[in-house]
């Protein structure tokens, strides 16, 4: 009877044992809670940074899947352009996986004000299409966004405006080349100024109406790039398949953002690896203390354990009892750690301002605001690692305790 104590009785025994030395239990509890907090909180910060990086990267030239002339990426000139997409493509894009798409001309150009000149990328865009794939008009800090494909004005970056020592409403000259390799130039009035999340974007791009640029470059009906946006940038498989089918038979290259920006793609992968390593490292640091605590708890009770065995308690019951003790400790620690983590992410959910090191963050491709990203997957991973590995680690001392010989154990002082 006493050899197979019901689980309820064992649990009660384990729970009471846990609090016999409350100081030790509290310290261990605090350590577990701190470890779990660190696992979840730091992961949320790092995830937040990388997510932001990827989103900024994608936003800097929107479109989760892009279509180019096969030679365009190697030689981004007007010569390597394609015809504007026809009705079949437009119809295919009318699918629920597509949230927006647009076609743009994208060629290297030189911009000159009265005083300065600079090199950049000239984007001939469809203003509404750009908004559909993710251009945010509230990044326009002065003037207005383009109104139509044949809008005669241009929208430049704030930084570029300073470089050129010019201002809103002033005229600048854009120079590029046409498909016959002749220099093509045209004067434009600056009608808007945009601010990029990364300062580099403000110097890299200038926006103009697509038809206007096509006219300037003698390239009617030609575009360099078709950009298609979907619901979630992480899951671009369906979108890629759809675009590939829609461009079947055309001499074009379809690429997802992951292939276009290998740094961002690599960072997402590095992050997943990092989260796992971080959680396991923290667990390992905890495990020494966990084993130590259980060992001490058992050591103090050797005589008691011997007595119980002598009275007929099965070794397996002793094993279970100690594992339960460990389980309670881990569960309490996890509870506390999770609550702490959520509570510490909550006050900074609107972002942490890191502008002190903004230029450094920009080197990583990250912006100065850090938004923690608390993900249920990461929380589940942390909790699972702690419970599963924690119980596995506790097996060692518990197994030891269950193998004491009653007589020897009782004789121990």
């Amino acid at each position: 009877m006493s050899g197979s104590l019901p689980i309820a009785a064992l649990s009660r025994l384990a729970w009471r044992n846990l609090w016999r030395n409350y100081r030790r239990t509290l310290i261990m509890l605090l350590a577990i809670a701190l470890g779990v907090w660190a696992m979840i909180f730091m992961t949320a910060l790092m995830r937040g940074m990388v997510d932001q990086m990827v989103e900024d990267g994608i936003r800097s030239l929107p479109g989760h899947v892009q279509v180019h002339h096969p030679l365009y990426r190697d030689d981004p000139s007007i010569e390597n352009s394609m015809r504007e997409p026809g009705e079949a493509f437009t119809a295919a894009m009318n699918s629920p996986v597509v949230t927006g798409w647009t076609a743009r001309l994208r060629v290297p150009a030189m911009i000159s004000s009265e005083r300065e000149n600079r090199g950049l990328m000239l984007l001939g865009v469809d203003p509404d299409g750009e908004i559909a794939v993710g251009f945010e008009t509230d990044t326009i800090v002065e003037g207005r966004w383009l109104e139509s494909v044949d809008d005669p004005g241009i929208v430049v970056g704030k930084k570029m405006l300073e470089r050129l020592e010019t201002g809103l409403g002033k005229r600048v000259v854009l120079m590029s080349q046409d498909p016959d390799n002749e220099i093509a130039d045209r004067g434009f009035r600056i009608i808007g100024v945009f601010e990029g999340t990364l300062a580099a974007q403000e110097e890299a791009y200038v926006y103009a109406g697509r038809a206007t640029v096509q006219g300037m470059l003698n390239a009617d009906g030609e575009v360099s790039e078709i950009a298609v946006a979907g619901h979630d940038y992480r899951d671009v498989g369906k979108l890629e398949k759809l675009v590939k089918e829609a461009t079947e038979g055309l001499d074009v290259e379809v690429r997802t953002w992951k292939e276009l920006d290998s740094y961002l793609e690599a960072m997402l992968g590095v992050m997943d690896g990092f989260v796992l390593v971080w959680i396991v490292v923290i667990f390992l640091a905890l495990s020494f203390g966990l084993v130590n605590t259980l060992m001490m708890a058992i050591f103090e009770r050797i005589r008691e354990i011997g007595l119980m065995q002598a009275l007929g308690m099965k070794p397996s019951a002793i094993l279970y009892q100690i594992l339960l003790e460990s389980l309670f400790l881990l569960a309490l620690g996890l509870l506390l750690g999770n609550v702490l983590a959520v509570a510490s992410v909550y006050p900074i959910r609107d972002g942490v301002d890191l502008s002190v090191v903004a230029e450094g963050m920009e080197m990583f491709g990250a912006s100065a605001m850090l938004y923690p990203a608390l993900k249920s997957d990461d929380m589940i991973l942390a909790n699972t690692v702690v419970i599963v590995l924690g119980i596995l680690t506790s097996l060692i001392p518990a197994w030891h305790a269950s193998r004491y010989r009653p007589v020897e154990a009782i004789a121990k002082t």
Partner: protein
Amino acid sequence: MSDDLQNHGAVFSLLSLQLAWRNLWRHSRRTWLTAGAMIFSNVLLIFMISLQLGSYDMMINNTLRAFSGHIQLQAEGYNENQRMRRSIPSILSLTRRVRESLPDAAVSARAAAFALVSSEERSFGAQLIGVQPAWEPGVSTLPGLISEGRYLEDPDAAEIVIGAVMARNLKVGLGDEITLLGSGWDGSFAAGVVTVVGIYRSGMADLDRSLAQLPFGYFQATFFMQGHGHAIVVALDDLDQVAPALSTLQPLAGDDLVLLDWDALNPGLKQAIQADMSSAWLMYGVLIVLVAFSVLNTQLMSVMERTREFGVVSALGVRPSRLAMLVLLETALMALIGLAIGLFLGWLVALYFNTAGLSYPGMEEAAARFNLPDRIYPSVSPLSLLLGPVVVFGFCLLAAIYPAARLLRLRPVEAMRAA
């Protein structure tokens, strides 16, 4: 008498040491587990810190040596906004004076302009740099990265060296001619035709796409510079020499020119390192605190289980402060074990990767962005080895203060009665 006292003291502390050592091994498994936690985090910290320091060194050196140098002398405001007219007059004679005042450093003059570069088929905007062919190789690694052809030689020849990406975009090769169009120093129209004599491949996409170098004399003539230039670049052997060099050069700068150090020239670099270092220390901090908790728990237990024993010895006249010192000594010994073994293992790990290099999936892409090679070699130096373990040691001692302080309040009679 005083000799006696001193001897007595010495014997006593040796005795405490012996006592502490023996106490440590009364629960050898517990001691090893606690020391194990220290060893684990010490090895990890040594590995991580030496990796970080190693990659920072490489990041700084690669970035500075590639192009910017350690110090530049420029006209006021040029660094913020690189305008043609913000220039240094009679730059060549000033460069000679800088060279004389810093005999060990490499010094070279540069002028820069933005221009439209056209081949027969293509045109792009590019940054043109006029360089002194004889001195430039000392301040920049670009001249050494020529993959086709040769670097510039004659300071007045109509020649150009371009990056590999630019060559591909312009569809030009060695011996082909390139037309330059821009505006000169006096605001007039500047144009020239130059021959491609070399193509460099730095691996930094930005440089390879947009930077081209011309001989200084030819640049002067084409852009009507009238003796003006934009920067005097100084390259030193290492970062420690930057501060003394800055003070040597200060009198030469005068009122119109500014001295910029590497941090001002590459504003993102130091901050990227700071951001990386502080986020790393946040993580190390958690690890170290966890180890400290482990020590706290162990020492508290070890004090509590000896309550009776401590009661007896204090009844015999041993002062509580002596007992507290004993506990601290025990902790210090345990932490020393953790430090020694951790340091040794950490040193082995760092040493191994210092020769073999380290690479992980995704690093190649990250490395390219930070001007790093695709393998990182951790630095093995006293700083990188000791920094982590010493902090761990300190926190372990801190953690023992609470258990030790409990002894100060020890009441012998009650303690002896304790279960």
